[in-house]
Every structure is written in structure tokens, then in C-alpha cells.
């Protein structure tokens, strides 16, 4: 089985988010880049399928050369090889089209993604890839087993879970639960060493039909200083919530 895992390189969660002087773009200066946290679950799942079923795992990213550091981390986690589309991601559809092309050219049976990236929060690329390739799609996946040409996927629904039988080839967008947090693979020394020589192919982008542009960014205003209420005066807290905040 050939698995493609789509990875985003994103700013580490604790990064201070700044924008350029004209507010038109994210300021990359001083940022620590990491694998998008949702993608980590997809990646570990893929490597576990590699271990249990002999699947091959390719990772793909749309990004400039600076994203290769994060791609090597993904290779260190256990992927076999990597493909980078040499472009700054512009919007969800152009990214999805580039990745769909890779899926088609490579004949991947299973595409695993994180359901959303923590930087632009599009939550669209996996579904778009599935639609472009006319494949079944499962989102918010919290459990996955693969058995030959079929997979059993559990997805989160309002108030519970749903178990589905999925015909491969398919696209699955996952989150925590697909793999438990404690089972996420952390690269060891051997993984890191071997990642250096695993194949990383660079392709030039072909998609230019951008459909959404960012006009400007604004930091969300910080809340006003907290109003502290004494633990002996909970009546005051109730009053504030009822009369001032009007939430109870």
C-alpha cells in the first residue's frame, strides 16, 4: 500500500504572531517552525501502517526551501521519502490541486492529512483533494484500521462517533484519537541520521489560479485586565456575570 501524508510547516504554538509593517503578510522573522500538530497524528498513523503492513510512506508539502527542515523531521519520524512543491502556499485550492496531482502521479492508495493547519485554519485542503480525485473522504477521523482494499474509520460527529467502512483509494483527515498523544513517534538519533539521506524531490508548481487573497491581518485585541473577585465574595462574581457580562 502506498500512503501519502500531506504536511504543513507551521509556526510553533508559542510563537508570537507578528505581521509585516503594512499588515499584509505574516512576519516569518524569528519563527520556530514545526510539523502542524494535527498532521503529526496522520504521520504517526502512516508510519505504524508501514510497520504493521509494509506500506510505503511519502510526505508532501507545498512550501519554499525553508520548509525542508520540517520535512526532514517528518522523514526522521519514519517516512520513506518526501516531495516538496516549490511554492509559497497561496490558498487552499491551489495547494489542494498541487497535492492532488502528486497523488494521481504516484498512485497513492491512501492520503492521510491533519484536518486543519494551525496557522491559516483553512480546514479545506483534505476535502478538496478528495473532491478533485473523486475519492471517498472522512473528516475528523479519530480511529483508522486498514484491511486490504478497505478501511474502517471512526469519525467524530455531534454528540458522538460514527464508524464507517471506506473503500480505498480514499482521503482521510485525522486528529487526536487516530493515534493517542502518548503514541506519537518522536524521532530518535537513528531516525534523524537516516532522514538526511532519504530522497526529497522538488517539483515546480503548476497551479496559478488563486481564488482567495489576504488583504490584511489584525491581531485580535487583548482582553482588558482581569477583574479578580475574592473567594469569600462569590456573590460579587455571580452579580458581575449576571449584570455586567450578562452571561447567566
Amino acid at each position: 500500500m502506498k500512503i501519502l501524508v500531506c504536511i504543513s510547516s507551521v509556526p510553533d504554538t508559542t510563537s508570537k504572531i507578528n505581521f509585516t509593517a503594512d499588515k499584509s503578510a505574516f512576519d516569518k522573522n524569528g519563527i520556530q517552525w514545526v510539523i502542524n500538530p494535527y498532521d503529526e497524528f496522520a504521520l504517526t498513523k502512516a508510519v505504524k501502517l508501514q510497520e504493521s503492513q509494509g506500506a510505503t510512506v511519502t510526505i508532501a508539502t507545498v512550501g519554499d526551501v525553508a520548509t525542508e527542515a520540517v520535512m526532514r523531521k517528518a522523514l526522521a519520524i519514519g517516512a520513506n521519502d518526501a516531495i516538496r512543491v516549490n511554492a509559497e502556499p497561496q490558498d487552499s485550492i491551489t495547494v489542494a490541486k498541487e497535492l492532488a496531482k502528486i497523488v494521481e502521479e504516484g498512485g497513492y492508495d491512501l492520503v492521510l492529512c491533519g484536518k486543519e493547519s494551525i496557522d491559516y485554519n483553512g480546514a479545506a485542503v483534505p476535502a478538496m483533494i478528495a473532491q478533485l480525485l473523486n475519492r471517498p473522504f472522512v473528516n475528523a477521523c479519530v480511529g483508522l484500521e486498514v484491511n486490504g482494499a478497505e478501511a474502517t474509520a471512526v469519525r467524530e460527529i455531534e454528540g458522538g462517533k460514527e464508524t464507517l467502512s471506506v473503500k480505498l483509494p480514499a482521503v482521510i483527515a485525522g486528529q487526536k484519537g487516530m493515534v493517542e498523544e502518548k503514541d506519537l513517534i518522536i524521532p530518535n538519533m537513528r531516525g534523524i541520521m537516516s532522514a538526511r539521506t532519504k530522497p526529497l524531490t522538488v517539483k515546480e508548481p503548476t497551479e496559478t489560479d488563486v481564488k482567495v487573497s489576504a488583504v490584511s491581518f489584525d491581531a485580535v485585541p487583548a482582553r482588558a485586565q482581569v477583574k479578580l473577585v475574592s473567594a469569600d465574595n462569590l456573590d460579587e462574581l455571580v452579580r458581575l456575570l449576571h449584570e455586567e457580562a450578562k452571561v447567566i
Partner: protein
Amino acid sequence: MSIFVYTENISGAYKKAALEAVSYAKTVADMSGTDVVAVSINPTDAADVLYKYGASKVVTLKSDALKSFNPKAYAEALATVVDGVVVFPHSTDASSVAPMLAVIKNASLLTNVVSAPVAVSPFEAKRKSFSGKAFMDAKAHGENVVVTVSQNSFGVKENPVSGSEEVKEVSVSAEGLTVVNQEKSSGKLDLKEAEVVVSAGRGMKGPENWGMIEELANVLGAATACSKPVSDIGWRSHSEHVGQTGKAIAPNLYIAVGISGAIQHLAGVNSSKTIVVINNDAEAPFFKSADYGVVGDAFQIIPALTEKIKALKGH
């Protein structure tokens, strides 16, 4: 051309998210000098509630292939009716359908919008980005636009119009996905929809202490949530985890008990309208992101607070 809205139903019922989407579509329609057409798939609720929020027509789609949720089949069904601007709630299921519809219609997709558009032609609106730390003013290219509305951001606005209903048979295929079974915790208020959420973390010291959290939630008519560490060690279900890799919620009131307020947690709750933090550590970072705070022992504070709220509600 009308502004279309996908009025998602949960087990047949229109919830607040769907009504919020209609309210948003009505605002866009008013700005564009047109009306709102709602499109539903397998509802059991009557259409009247949708007329109340501004939809002057409701098109109900029927097909055997639509009996269980399959995002591609739903997108293809919607595509037979909609064009131009199509509004969705940003709920788990609807947000899977929206990107697929955008591909079919070669449309621009703006997800998680938080306010009325700045302009409608070309469509431009503010949306959430950087996990709630920044707003992105995003502009669509072209006339086909799919928009998903972030829950509890725009609000529900009554705008009654007279409306009519139409039922349409559609023919789509739902291959490749079969539902094997569903597990629902009946009666529990859904976390993404709840207006009040009571959340707790490691400060509770053990799963056996959650009774007081559930009692407070009960009295408030709230849903319960938890921090990542307690879901990872199995004290609470993953479905309650709010945070960067859990759910992002935006209730009117978020009460955090015994949660320190790591950035990953804030990413899931920073859109809450009012945040109350209860923690015995005055240095807990969460106090910097709270509206109201109480420093002290949760085991004393929560039961006392529950009694006072009961009194307020006249119990």
C-alpha cells in the same frame, strides 16, 4: 441571484449554527439587494423557523443517496441548486461539504468568517486565523464564493419574511462510504453549540472529583469540557478536550477550573465572549487572558458558586 445558505440539520433539527448561517446570508442578501434561499437535506423541523431568520424560500433535497452523511454526495446535491454566494455554518459536517462544493463550483472558499462582509462584489470578509490570535481580511476572486460562518461569532438575528418551500428530487451517488454504526451520548449538550461551558483540568486531582464540575454545569445548563492533559491520561473523554489539537469553541461563558492556561489551551477557547478562571495559583497564566478570576481552592469555590447560581435561578 439569491444568496444561498445550507441549513444543516442535526438529526433533523435546525440548531443555532444553522440559524446563524441564515442570519449571515440575510445580511449579505440585504447588502446585495436580493433574497435568501435556504437549502436543506432531510430535515424534520418545519421550514417556518428559517423564514423567521430571513429565508424567503426553502428548497428541500431528497435522494436515497443522502440518507446518511457523505460530504461528496451532499456537495453534489447542493451543486444542483446553488450558485454565486453560498453560506454554511462552520460545523464539523458542513465544513467538510463546503470545500467540496467550492471545488465543484470553482468558487473561492472563505472559512470561519466572523463578521458581516466588508464588500460583496468582490466578496471580502474577516475570518479567523492563527488559531484565534489574528483576523485575516480575505478577498474572493470571482463571483462564486463559499463562506463558512464561525459559530457564535456573527449571532442569530431575527428578520422575518414570508417564505415558501419546494421539494426537489436529486440524483447523486454516495459510493465508497458505508455507515457501520453510530454511538451518541444521548441528552448531553453538544460542546460546540453550548452557550455556557464549564471546563476543568489537572487541578481537579483525579477523575473522581468531577462531580462538582458536572453539577455546576447542570445548574448552568452548560456543557462540560477539559484540558488536554486530563483527556490524554483518560480522566475525561477526548471529545471534551478543548485546545489546539482538540475542539475550538466560542461559548458566551467559559469557566475554567484548575486549568493553568497554556497557549495550546487558549487557542481553543480564546473566542469565548466571557472567560472566568478559578485557580489556586495566582501566577497561573490563564488569569492574563481572563475577564473574571478567583484565586482559591476550587473544591471550596465550585460547590459554593453552584449554590449561589441555584439561588439566582430560583431553585
